[in-house]
């Protein structure tokens, strides 16, 4: 751990009433740590280390081993870059779910150890809620409809009566999972993303629409497993890879945007945010922009580097929660929850963002 005497940045003069929170993210393939302040410039550090399988997909045990190996360095660097000693923190925020058990355990262990050693309270953070909070913080949209698309999640949410409620979601696999699995099975990945572009997007260039692939929107929910199976079947039948990639992507993106469109009409919200790993996708951003324009809703894209998993979003959410009295009374209670749904989490800070504290 970083000693106050050895840190590289000058010590910060703390303003009165300033809160400092360390955020720890460790739900899947990324170990991230960040120190966030309740005062500008808010984000004092953002350090991450991402596990990238050389072949195949994420193996939970391998990912967890990678995270455990990198965790101490990442946390130390985050404190160092922020110029904050662990003893100066007000709280430690950690994403306790939803996510992969082995990965979650790494983050929870690190948070419990730090909290015990320095006598700090732990603030439990829901990973999905954190993706929303960083998007609200960056865009300044206080009360938006949320389209959260990632490797393990595809959900349309909005805040009603104290919580983020699920309006629609995937009935089977997530959008990112669909793209990655198809790319892997089709032999065009890993690497999944090069230069900010997904392998499926790269292959879709010049592709043409293939009729008859399944487009499944059931009321407010989407389903992708049939689309995945059909796409792979068509490939085996000799359909052009670029055509299948193009159609798969068009159907998948259109269906989530359509559910979001229904969500806007139903909830009456006048703005929309796109967040989560797949939110970095330029084509999806363009579709959401066009839909929002048609519905008369505001849309602000967020920077690609804050779409994927990071410690900043955990720290931001943790700070908001901590400032509103949310924390565990003992590190022992910092238990992971693989299936922790965002609509189980009270969000007493809403509609405030970090900038309003």
């Amino acid at each position, binding site marked *: 751990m970083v000693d106050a005497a050895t840190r590289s940045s000058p010590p910060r003069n703390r303003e009165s009433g300033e809160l400092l929170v360390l955020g720890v993210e460790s739900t899947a393939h990324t170990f991230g740590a960040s120190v966030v302040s309740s005062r500008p410039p808010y984000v004092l550090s953002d350090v991450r280390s991402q596990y990238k399988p050389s072949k195949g997909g994420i193996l939970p045990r391998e990912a967890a081993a990678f995270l455990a190996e990198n965790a101490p360095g990442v946390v130390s660097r985050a404190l160092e870059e922020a110029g904050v000693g662990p003893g100066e923190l007000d709280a430690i925020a950690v994403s306790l779910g939803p996510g992969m058990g082995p990965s979650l355990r790494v983050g929870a262990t690190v948070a419990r150890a730090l909290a015990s050693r320095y006598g700090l309270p732990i603030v439990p953070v829901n990973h999905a809620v954190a993706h929303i909070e960083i998007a609200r913080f960056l865009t300044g949209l206080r009360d938006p409809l949320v389209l959260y698309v990632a490797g393990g999640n595809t959900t349309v949410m909005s805040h009603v009566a104290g919580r983020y409620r699920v309006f629609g979601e995937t009935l089977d696999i997530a959008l990112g999972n669909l793209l990655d699995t198809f790319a892997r099975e089709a032999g065009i990945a890993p690497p999944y993303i090069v230069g900010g572009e997904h392998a499926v997007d790269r292959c879709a260039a010049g592709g043409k629409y293939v009729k008859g692939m399944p487009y499944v929107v059931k*009321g407010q929910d989407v389903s992708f497993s049939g689309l995945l199976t059909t796409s792979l079947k068509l490939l085996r039948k000799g359909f052009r890879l670029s055509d299948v990639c193009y159609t798969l992507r068009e159907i998948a993106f259109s269906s989530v945007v359509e559910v979001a469109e*229904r969500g806007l009409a139903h909830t009456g919200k006048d703005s929309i945010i796109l967040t989560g790993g797949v939110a970095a996708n330029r084509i999806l951003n363009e579709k959401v922009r066009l839909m929002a324009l048609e519905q008369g809703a505001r849309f602000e894209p967020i920077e690609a580097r804050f779409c994927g998993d990071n410690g900043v979003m955990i720290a931001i959410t943790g700070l908001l929660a901590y400032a509103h009295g949310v924390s565990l009374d003992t590190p022992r209670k910092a238990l992971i929850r693989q299936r922790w749904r965002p609509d189980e989490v009270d969000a007493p800070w809403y509609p405030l963002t970090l900038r309003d504290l």
Partner: protein
Amino acid sequence: MVSFDAERLIEWVRSLELVKRGAESEIRVGSFMGLEAVFKLRVPKPYMDPELDLELRSFRTRREAKAMAAAISGGVRAPRVYAVFPSAGLIVMERIKGPLLKERLQVHGDHGHLLHEAGGMLARLHRAGLVHGDPTTSNYIVAETGMLYLIDYGLSSFSTSIEDRAVDIHLFRRALESTHATIAQEAFTNFMEGYKRVMGEEAGKVEERAEEIRLRGRYVEKRRTIWGRTL
């Protein structure tokens, strides 16, 4: 159909009086061969591939028109379909004039018979092999003749599964609770009486499943559990 025709048709329909714009379609009113008609137009989505968009709109238009026709044959009072133009995403149908059930329920009085009839009509739809997909109090019209109509088959599909039927019941209940909170309990009891009367024995299973859906957690906070522990 030639796409040129569809475009001209759409252009003409869009000159009619707009009464409602939903997420999926525009509802306009006008005259069709001398009859007062509702024009339901599924508008192209700018964010979709044009071929996908056309495929979806024409599929959904056709499915909706078929559902309406099947509903009427099954004894459900639904608007009559005058004409269908799948490639234009257009259904022309009978115009039913009158307040929505939602508006009627907001006026004080005894609405028992209306809810009873609403339940019976949903049961007739189910017996016809269909589910509605969006049965709310905004999708029933109390016609000027006093008769109740079930409208908007945009999300309906051909299904006889208990689950899909139960979702309909659940959706209606949720609509009552969110829009007519003070009378929801009694209204739902009346609705279910009407439903059971038409549905007969099968109604029991559907009702049971609807209660199960309600408690699945997705919709109800207080019964949410993780690994058997109530939160």
